């Protein structure tokens, strides 16, 4: 069992982090957020330093640390800030830092989708609801924080439960990921190029050889996979002829596709890193090995995600559509529903308003926020 770092460091960091979060949570008296955040940050930093000291050649790039600390700090502020609007804005910060992590993980499409969907749409909805569902100022504390925002419920027990879970999770993840080795045979990201001949030919046409001449002749285009392509490839010593049934590019119906293969040809003994075959009008073919491909000929992240989504998960898209439709119908029905206040809340609101209008009379004509008639009306009627 390999924990990647010493168990003392791992569990010590979990305990220290838990202590920091417990400190930072809002409570009745002053809650030392800065101290708590600092302790939690030290715990996280100790874990990263422990990993970095033991595996100095496998640590991620320095931007990872920046984004990790910003996103976790933002997350901590989401659950500790007493003002809901600020909590929502810190959530936006967390999302933006997570987008940085996504970019480091080569997921550009999702990074931007996340900014648009989360920071742009969902969070704005949250902000609107926070502002819609805010109680009116009470007489004793105009503009002050609500009691349920200032005091958290069982901070110590919740933190202990959470960080015991974190200890278990990090242990399991460490044991699991220490046993993982990157699988080079799984590098099939660029295979869909075989069904995108227009993209390939565009990149080839715009490319120039090092001495300034166009890479391909005007009449040349990508060849379709066929026996003749196999012979050309075998003659150029790129593949062996008996490999062809295995590595022939196919489209998703299993028919021969365009003769391009971005994968290293495996198990050959021939050192070819990928190839494509061009044909001209007379039918003469030539092989373009991967080393001569233009630098902008590859499958972009968006295209890769799109192929994976449509090709591998078409049913899931349908289900996602149904979920969204159901959510839309449900939200519409919920929004149209007329709700009466329950008795206790109504009495409380009436008392609050009465007290408030009394206060206004005490102050004279300066601040008549609510007239007694309005107060009666609001208390008696149901609110919409």
């Amino acid at each position, binding site marked *: 069992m390999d924990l990647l770092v010493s168990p003392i460091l791992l569990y010590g960091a979990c305990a220290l982090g838990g202590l920091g*979060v417990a400190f930072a949570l809002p409570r009745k008296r002053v809650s030392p957020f800065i101290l708590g955040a600092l302790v939690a940050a030290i715990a*996280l930093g100790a874990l990263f330093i422990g990993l970095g000291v033991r595996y100095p050649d496998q*640590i991620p790039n*320095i931007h*990872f640390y920046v984004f990790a600390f910003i996103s*976790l700090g933002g997350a901590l502020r*989401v*659950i500790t800030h007493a003002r*809901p609007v600020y909590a*929502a804005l810190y*959530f936006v910060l967390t*999302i933006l830092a997570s987008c940085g992590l*996504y970019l480091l*993980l*080569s997921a*550009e*499409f999702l990074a931007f*989708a996340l900014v648009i969907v989360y920071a742009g749409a*969902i969070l704005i909805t*949250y902000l609107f*609801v926070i502002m819609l569902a805010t*109680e009116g100022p009470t007489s004793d504390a105009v503009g002050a924080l609500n009691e*349920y*925002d200032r005091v*958290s419920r069982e901070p110590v027990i*919740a*933190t202990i*439960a*959470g960080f015991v879970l974190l200890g278990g*999770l*990090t242990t399991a*993840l460490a044991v699991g990921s*220490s046993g*993982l*080795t*990157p*699988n*080079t045979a799984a*590098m099939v990201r*660029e295979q869909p190029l075989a069904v995108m001949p227009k993209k390939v030919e565009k990149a080839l046409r715009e490319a120039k050889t090092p001495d300034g001449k166009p890479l391909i002749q005007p009449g040349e285009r990508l060849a379709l996979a066929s026996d003749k392509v196999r012979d050309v490839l075998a003659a150029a010593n790129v593949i062996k002829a008996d490999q062809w049934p295995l590595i022939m590019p196919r489209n998703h119906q299993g028919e021969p596709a365009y003769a391009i293969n971005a994968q290293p040809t495996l198990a050959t003994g021939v050192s070819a890193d990928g190839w494509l075959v061009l044909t001209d009008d007379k039918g003469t073919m030539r092989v373009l090995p991967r080393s001569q491909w233009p*630098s902008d*000929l*590859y499958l*972009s*992240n968006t295209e890769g*995600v799109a*192929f*994976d*989504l449509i090709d*591998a998960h078409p049913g899931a898209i349908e289900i*996602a559509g149904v*979920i969204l439709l*159901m*959510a839309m119908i*449900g939200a519409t029905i*919920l929004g149209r529903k007329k*709700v009466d*206040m*329950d008795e206790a*809340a109504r009495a409380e609101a009436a008392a609050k308003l009465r007290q408030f209008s009394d206060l206004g009379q005490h102050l004279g004509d300066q601040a008549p926020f609510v007239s007694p008639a309005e107060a009666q009306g609001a208390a008696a009627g149901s609110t919409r």
Partner: protein
Amino acid sequence: MNYLTILTLAQGPTPELMSGVTLYHYLAVSAAMFVIGLIGFMTRRNLIIMFLCTELMFQAAGIALIAFSRFHLNHSGESFVIFVLTVAAAEAALALGLVILLFRRKETLDGTRWTELQG
């Protein structure tokens, strides 16, 4: 080794392979974010913040999925994050509708006021 260079983004031809230890860094961040969301869900009493904390947990799951997707150099994890986004959007719409209903009923966002819902 590569900690001062910007890692090749996916726009590069073939991204370099990622080791299990590098993967673990991202998974640790994801686990920590999930636990922070969980603690927030348990401790905060404001209904809206509680739902914000579920979004935080969704986000943590997304980071783990993307990290595995990068590690295995395929796009399945990324497609799955799209579905996570879908579910999060649907959940936000429904949950916020419910929060508005609950607020109209009691004129407060305090979750502890709904203890009569216990089974």
